[in-house]
């Protein structure tokens, strides 16, 4: 399994402004609803808020992996976001980088494997802080690809 099979340049957002996770999940839900038909926004947002997990914390840099199952999706999708807080006084558990994994329930194993890979990357020092510092979407994408190539 490779992240590059699920993360495409058009699934990267490096300037999402949000102060707390609920707001971030709302923004991502709106993006997904605009891209895919037949998504129930209310259910997706509820699921994202429920499955809003943190993969790893490195200092003040937190990678979140909110995930949900949406059966109307044709395949697993992964949106990656870099979160910009509006102020310095953000909640200490605010994520800086989020990997949103959404799958149809028939892809449960693929869903699990993708989250496992992201959680492994998140354990490596520097990955989150690197991503949190990259503003350019293409450079952000290349940093993810580099990490993807580095690991078994």
């Amino acid at each position, binding site marked *: 399994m490779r992240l590059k099979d699920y993360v495409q340049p058009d699934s990267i957002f490096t300037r999402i402004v949000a102060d707390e996770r609920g707001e971030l999940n709302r923004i991502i839900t709106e993006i997904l609803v605009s891209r895919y038909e037949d998504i129930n926004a209310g259910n997706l947002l509820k699921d994202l808020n429920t499955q809003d997990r943190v993969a790893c914390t490195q200092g003040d840099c937190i990678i979140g992996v909110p995930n949900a199952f949406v059966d109307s999706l044709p395949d697993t999708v992964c949106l990656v976001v870099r979160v910009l807080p509006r102020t310095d006084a953000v909640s200490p558990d605010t994520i800086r980088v989020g990997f949103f994994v959404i799958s149809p329930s028939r892809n449960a*194993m693929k869903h699990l*494997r993708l989250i*496992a*890979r992201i*959680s*492994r990357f998140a*354990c490596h020092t520097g990955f989150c802080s690197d991503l949190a510092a990259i503003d350019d979407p293409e450079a952000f994408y290349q940093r993810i690809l580099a990490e993807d190539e580095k690991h*078994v």
Partner: protein
Amino acid sequence: MSEIRNDVELLVCLVKEYGHVDEILAGFLELGISGATVVDGRGMGEIITRDIPVFSGLRNLFPRGDLHTYVILSLVQVEVIETAFRLVEEVCGDLSLPGSGGVFALPVGRNRGFPKQPPAE
């Protein structure tokens, strides 16, 4: 009758840091390995230097012997074994260094209770 299987081997990982266990199990999921047992163990170095007083001053002869050992056991498809080895080495570092743990695989004889898994996509 018990079936003798050639499609799987018993993968045994000896891991010295608990943080590595998490990462290895996550890596196993990526490889399609969905089952494993982790045993909290004590290595020879730990027992000798902690429990047998005459050796207590010789800890430096047992590199990382003061660390716990975690044993990960899993029946793994033979075609995934080499990748699993590389995964464990990636997580744990150079396994040729003393006290860094290790990984090996053994053939499985008769067995029950391990249904065949569909191949990972």
